[in-house]
């Protein structure tokens, strides 16, 4: 290509003469008509018959793709792969995705606009457009208006192009070679680029390192670190004793652990078991009884547990008439406060577990003292 000329420049003195020449040159159909002017001229787009740029459509498609990508990622993470309920929001709440979807939309759209314009549409990078090395370039950027006829194929007739431009009123003509489109991604350039990036990283890293060494007091963005708050296990000047962590105020009650059965056992007699007699409740009671009570009171509740012989203790026989006549509340009171050698189990069992145990003890008692009509209930 370097032998044949690639484009012919015709230089015009005024924008009006340039505008007048455009239709004449387009009519010759010798090649692509291109204009180089020091400033934008109104109406030149229509005169040159520039096609509508496909960039807008590309940006729209990629923007929508970006939104969908962000939505897909977030939905997959928060609803499929690792669903955690945070802040009481359902897994996959689309409301929280919108800001990130917006950001990714913008990211995809801007990258498409920038790279699509440079690489796809303008076919960059290449080494210098021939117009930039033309003699006319200084006047193009100052006060002259240039029309170029550019080759569309090998059969470009530069003699005819020169004649056409002269006929259209160009005051000067210049013939240019084709742009140098020799390969750009050679190993040499790739190595140089990588080396440049490496040097840049090294310089920046060392610079930051020395800066933070020399100016250790310059801490960036400490607003979150230095907020006035109490940290567990850290000192604090807020309280008199200098601790950040404080003991709960006397009488503090955890949620779901309202204190009941605090008085005497006789007072607890009137308490009513709040739990229904369901399979689930009995199962909770069975587990808790098995873990906490069985070692002493025995699997049947008859006071013969595995520890009884070893310690020589005399745990209550829950099958005894005395305990079968106990109201629920008194059994509950014993679980909470302990009795004789039995310690309190308030710390081991939650309120619901205690009442479940009461139900289970009732079931054990009934199992050992079953009545005839119980058989009917069991029948399916």
């Amino acid at each position: 290509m370097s032998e044949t000329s690639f484009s012919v420049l015709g230089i015009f003195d005024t924008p009006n003469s340039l505008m007048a020449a455009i239709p004449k040159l387009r009519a010759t159909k010798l090649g692509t008509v291109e204009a180089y002017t020091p400033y934008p001229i109104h109406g030149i787009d229509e005169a040159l018959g520039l096609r509508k740029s496909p960039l807008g459509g590309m940006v729209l498609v990629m923007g929508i793709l970006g939104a969908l990508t962000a939505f897909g990622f977030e939905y997959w993470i928060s609803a499929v792969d690792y669903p955690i309920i945070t802040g009481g929001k359902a897994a996959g709440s689309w409301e929280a995705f919108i800001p990130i979807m917006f950001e990714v939309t913008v990211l995809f759209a801007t990258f498409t606009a920038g790279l699509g314009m440079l690489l796809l549409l303008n076919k960059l990078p290449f080494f210098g457009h021939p117009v930039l090395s033309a003699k006319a370039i200084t006047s193009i950027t100052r006060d002259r208006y240039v029309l170029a006829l550019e080759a569309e194929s090998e059969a470009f007739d530069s003699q005819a192009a020169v004649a056409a431009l002269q006929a259209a009123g160009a005051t000067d003509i210049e013939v240019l070679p084709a742009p140098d489109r020799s390969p750009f991604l050679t190993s040499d350039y790739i190595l140089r680029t990588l080396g440049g990036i490496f040097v840049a990283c090294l310089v920046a890293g060392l610079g930051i390192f020395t800066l933070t060494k020399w100016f250790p007091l310059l801490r960036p963005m400490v607003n979150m670190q230095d907020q006035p708050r109490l940290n567990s296990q850290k000192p604090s000047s807020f309280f008199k004793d200098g601790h950040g962590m404080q003991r709960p105020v006397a009488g503090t009650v955890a949620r779901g652990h309202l204190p009941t059965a605090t008085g005497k056992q006789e007072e607890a007699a009137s308490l009513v078991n709040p739990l229904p007699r369901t399979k689930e409740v009995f199962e909770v009671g069975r587990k808790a009884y098995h873990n906490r009570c069985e070692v002493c009171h025995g699997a049947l509740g008859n006071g013969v547990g595995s520890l009884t012989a070893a310690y020589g203790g005399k745990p209550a026989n829950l099958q005894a008439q005395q305990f079968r006549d106990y109201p629920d509340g008194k059994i509950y009171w014993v679980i909470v406060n302990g009795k004789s050698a039995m310690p309190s189990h308030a710390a081991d069992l939650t309120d619901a577990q205690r009442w479940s145990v009461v139900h289970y003890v009732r079931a054990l008692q009934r199992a050992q003292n079953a009545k005839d009509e119980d058989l009917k209930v069991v029948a399916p």
Partner: protein
Amino acid sequence: MSQNPKKSPLLLGAMGLGALGVLGTYVAAGHERFWANWVLWFVLIFTLGLGSLFIVALEHLVSARWSVPVRRIPERLATLLLPAVPVGLIALFALPVLYPGTRPEAAHNHILAGKASWLSIPFFSVRTAIAMVLVLIGLAILVGGSLKQDQTKDPAFNFKARKFAPAYMAIFALVITLIAFDWISGLTPEWYSDIFGVYIFAGAFLSGLAATVLCLLYLQDRDRLGGVKGDHLFNLGGFLFAFTVFWSYIGFAQYMLMWYANMPDEVMYYKVRLAGSWRAITITLALVHFILPFFALVTRAAKKDPKRLRRVAYLMLGAHLLDLYWLIFPVLGARPLFSWPELSFALFFIGGITLWVRGAMEKGEDMPVGDPFLREGLEFRL
């Protein structure tokens, strides 16, 4: 140019029919419903006028040149602020009916008792009156001065308007926030949102732009705006496009923060609007106020296509109306009310607004012929 507009018997008939329905609403459909409708239309007319006057003031503020040839249209539309005054004064009678902050029970409500002096009828009325006076001063200086310039051709008006515009912008911000907080937010005084004024501003500006586009096309159809080109339309279309996004941005930002924080007093506002039939209206609103106009105007060609712009402008006026309906009507109940009272109000007020705007379109010259920048504006190219 054109002869006086013929008194349109169709419009007058529609208005008469609407007026009958309006009276019927007061008698038969309950006072609450009557006043909710009345407040809706008052806010619509007022925001439409305010949005138009904002376009005028914006041009003076930034010394825009391209918009000089079309400036007379928002100037004429801004005269809607005149009929908005009596409509607004009548709307003050809605205070004891619709606004919980003015009722005696408010004294027993902890939150409302703290705002009692602000929400009380006297101060509320005084605020509205002050807002109206301020806006009318702006109208007199910006629009009155411009109309006078047609005869005097005195460029001193441009200097004066340029100086006054920043002050008017401050007034505008104050007034639109007051309207938003008092008249709309005041319906649910336990709920508040700092951004609410900006949200209403976005709707007001959009409705002003849409009405400007419609009137521009109306005048162009009658060959009364020689020299106004696709480039001018493109700028208006671009504004319309940009502010659909702005409206959605503000609307969604407000929703998302409240949804996240989940505070009972804030989130109730959306709970009501996302339940039952209101949910369908909320989705429709997002559709017609954002998604449809966004994609209708996204290409460059669409922003200067008169046919498409006319459709989008009608759509945006409708969307602004639906937005206000969505803001105001949930106070009447869990089910969206729409029946003959709403239709009568629409007939009456749309008829009235159309008549007024038609009359206003004959005020002064079609372009500000006394403005020294008119020629520069006509030569505007993208």
